[in-house]
């Protein structure tokens, strides 16, 4: 049965507690900071999409120059605070830490990054000074990581930025699409406000491209436009029974947990989650934490090919989620319009596909799972209609840009998930920086 309000307030609070607690004090942070070798041309830095100077900011914690440490982080990544909580660091900076080569625990880079950035946010340190307005205006569509990063970079240089955001809050998927035990809604709001505190950036909320605003108007009213509109719709399964009550989209499910509160979000007794990306993990673990009795994750390939990290998979498994590899959804069965079972096909791995991963092949053999809820987390689909409708060159809805972040339309730039189809927050932040740089060049600003 699908129902909400399964647990007590205390149980919710405990289940959604911060999964990676911060350092209690500077002494604790310094123990780890002092372990850092201060590598030259450091592998951690090279493995960060935004190239944060990790050895430098860690050294600055060791010397108790926390303000300097925060400045080092934010200079490369204005969402360094959020990234310290949501980055899959085990495959980025921490995964590259040279201590791994000694079979030793890597430096807890994310935790150290959180230490400095949290101090900066708590104390409202103004680490960047905006140059005086130079009279140029740029419109940005989407107040997610790409848009905010682009906006901050531009505003720093004295450009006046207006961001059009379709939701009522900024932060994009950081605010709406990530498990609540990683970042709280309050944190996301604080982070957005902290980024905006540089000045020169106005966000117009509840303004959706194609509904309230048009690209043509933006082009007319601004010197340049940056599209950081992300991806939206959950990929459809295209199987019978997808419209039954109890089949939900992971992004909506996660969004509701964050937007409405834990007790308000209904969850089944027996839940199937389809997919094995970060969003699938966030949906499965949170379904369990909301009080679902059984959660089963299905993936059509194997652990070798899964998009999430081993670390993420471990979180799901420790939460008691079952994993079924090599299984694809075939049909959702229901009674009285409500989900009762998920019929799956057993798969096997065939030849590598375009992604280089071995593609799953239907064996013809099926099995049935008794479930009352199905969460779809098989990826998100770009806003193809919107993008094509505006005459923007795209590849299956993903905006095509050149090496200068420019779309086929003059003065219109793009980056982030809308271009890459959905990557990490940190990738979007870098895309925003790149976009800002390209716009500056386009506007002939040195």
């Amino acid at each position, binding site marked *: 049965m699908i129902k909400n309000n399964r647990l007590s307030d205390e149980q919710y609070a405990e289940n959604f507690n911060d999964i990676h607690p911060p350092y209690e004090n500077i002494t604790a942070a310094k123990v780890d900071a002092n372990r850092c070798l201060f590598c030259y*041309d450091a*592998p951690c830095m090279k493995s960060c999409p935004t190239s944060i100077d990790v050895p430098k900011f860690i050294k600055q914690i060791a010397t108790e120059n926390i303000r300097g440490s925060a400045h080092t982080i934010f200079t490369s990544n204005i969402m360094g605070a959020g990234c310290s909580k949501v980055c899959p660091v085990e495959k980025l900076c921490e995964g590259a830490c040279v201590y791994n080569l000694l079979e030793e625990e890597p430096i807890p880079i994310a935790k150290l990054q959180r230490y400095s950035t949290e101090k900066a946010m708590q104390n409202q340190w103004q680490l960047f000074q905006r140059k005086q307005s130079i009279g140029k205006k740029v419109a940005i569509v989407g107040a997610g990581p790409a848009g905010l990063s682009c906006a901050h970079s531009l505003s720093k240089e004295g450009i006046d930025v207006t961001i059009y955001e379709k939701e009522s809050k900024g932060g994009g998927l950081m605010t709406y699409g990530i498990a609540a035990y990683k970042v709280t809604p309050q944190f996301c709001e604080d982070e957005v406000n902290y980024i905006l505190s540089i000045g020169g950036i106005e966000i117009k909320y509840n303004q959706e491209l194609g509904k309230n605003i048009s690209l043509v108007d933006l082009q007319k009213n601004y010197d340049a436009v940056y599209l950081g509109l992300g991806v939206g719709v959950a990929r459809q399964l295209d199987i019978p029974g997808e419209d039954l009550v109890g089949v939900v989209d992971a992004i909506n499910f996660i969004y509701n947990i964050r937007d409405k509160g834990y007790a308000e979000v209904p969850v089944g007794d027996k839940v199937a989650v389809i997919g094995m990306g970060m969003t699938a993990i966030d949906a499965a673990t949170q379904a369990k934490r909301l009080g679902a009795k059984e959660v089963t994750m299905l993936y059509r390939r194997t652990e070798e090919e899964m998009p999430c990290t081993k670390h993420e998979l471990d979180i799901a498994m420790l939460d008691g989620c079952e994993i079924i590899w090599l299984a694809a959804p075939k049909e959702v069965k229901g009674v009285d319009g409500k989900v009762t079972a998920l019929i799956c096909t057993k798969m096997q791995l065939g030849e590598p596909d375009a992604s280089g991963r071995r593609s799953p092949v239907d064996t013809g053999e099926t099995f049935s799972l008794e479930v009352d809820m199905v969460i779809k987390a098989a990826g998100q689909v770009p806003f193809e209609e919107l993008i094509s409708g505006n005459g923007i060159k795209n590849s299956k809805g993903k905006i095509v840009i050149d090496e200068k972040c420019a779309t086929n339309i003059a003065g219109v730039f793009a980056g982030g998930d809308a271009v890459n189809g959905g990557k990490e927050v940190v990738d979007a932040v870098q895309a925003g920086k790149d976009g800002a740089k390209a716009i500056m060049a386009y506007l002939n600003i040195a």
Partner: protein
Amino acid sequence: MADISSNFLGIKSPNPFWLASAPPTDKKYNVLRAFEAGWGGVVWKTLGSQVKNVSSRYSAVDFGGQRVMGFNNIELISDRPLDINLKEIAECVKLFPDRAMIVSLMADNDKKSWHEIIKKVEDTGAHGLELNFGCPHGMTERGMGAAVGQDPEIACMVVEWVMEAATLPVITKLTPNVHSVVPTGRSVVKAGTNALSLINTIQSVTGIDLDTLVPNPYVAGKSVFGGYCGPAVKPIALKFLTTIAQDELTKKVPVSGIGGISTWKDAVEFMLLGASNVQVCTAAMKHGFRIVEDMCEGLNNWMDEKGFKTLDDFIGKSVDTITHWEDLDINYHHIAKINQDKCIHCGLCYIACEDTSHQSINLEYGKPYNKYTIKEEECVGCNLCQLVCPVDDCITMEEHRVAPEYINWIEWQKRGLPLNDH
């Protein structure tokens, strides 16, 4: 199993580890705990005329997340009444007759004071006396401590007074707050001291509180130079020890080594450079008396491994290996080698060499791991890369002699051989 028992001027102790004259040895309670823990002996905290101490008394230097790499103090000699100290010394000797009991002394600068205190101490049953000519703070302003040790003539005079009265072996403790310890060392040996001990603490400022802007240790808004000790001073102590061990006159008397000894390894190093035994303070103040357990076990295991049966088998063995620069072999050359299987690609060797040495390491860019190799023709064999490498035995120095025969600088010049080959 090796025999680690020590005989210093006939004073026997089950091991060569004594606690130095300092706060850990200023009363019966501590000394009994030290003996129970296994220390071979103690040098009782300096006795003299009555003093008064201040608060605070200590400060430290931390480094790279480690506390107390260096330590300093502005504490004076014992501030307890003399008769209580004497009574407790006698009690400790009775309770632990197999341990060495040395009493440190710093009398006022007159013969009578020295003779009186020596008589009183000898009545306690203690085994030896140590003359504190080294304390660099507080007592120096009164013409005592380092003020004596810094002036060979005054030191000589005081030792002569002492030797007139003492029947117990006398150890003279030297101050490092001099250009060389040898002049005072020679002077007191001539005056008859039976042994030397060194070093006492080094005058220092350990640091400044960046909020109050007052240096440490803090005493009501002021500070003074304190005596520096702990691991940071070990290299300086070893140097002074070597000069005493190599001097024709001072090498004739046994030396008790002091200065930053924290482990059995440190102790062995002091003994290899001529110390017959060692005294420890800072390490015990940081960790308590229990550290002596590993000191004994480590020393024993090392001696077994090296085949040394007694301490005398290795005491002084490295003294002759420290020579003059002019005697070094110019034809000796070694070149760094990076073991690629052990390298973790941290780049510390590269940046050290590139920025501050001889640009002898090649960087082959990789994402995320660069490959580092030695440019053999450029390497001067300075060791810097090996020293900064965080992995044991990853960088080794391989011998590549320039020529087979030994040749030193003097000979090199005589033959007019070329200079500036790099």
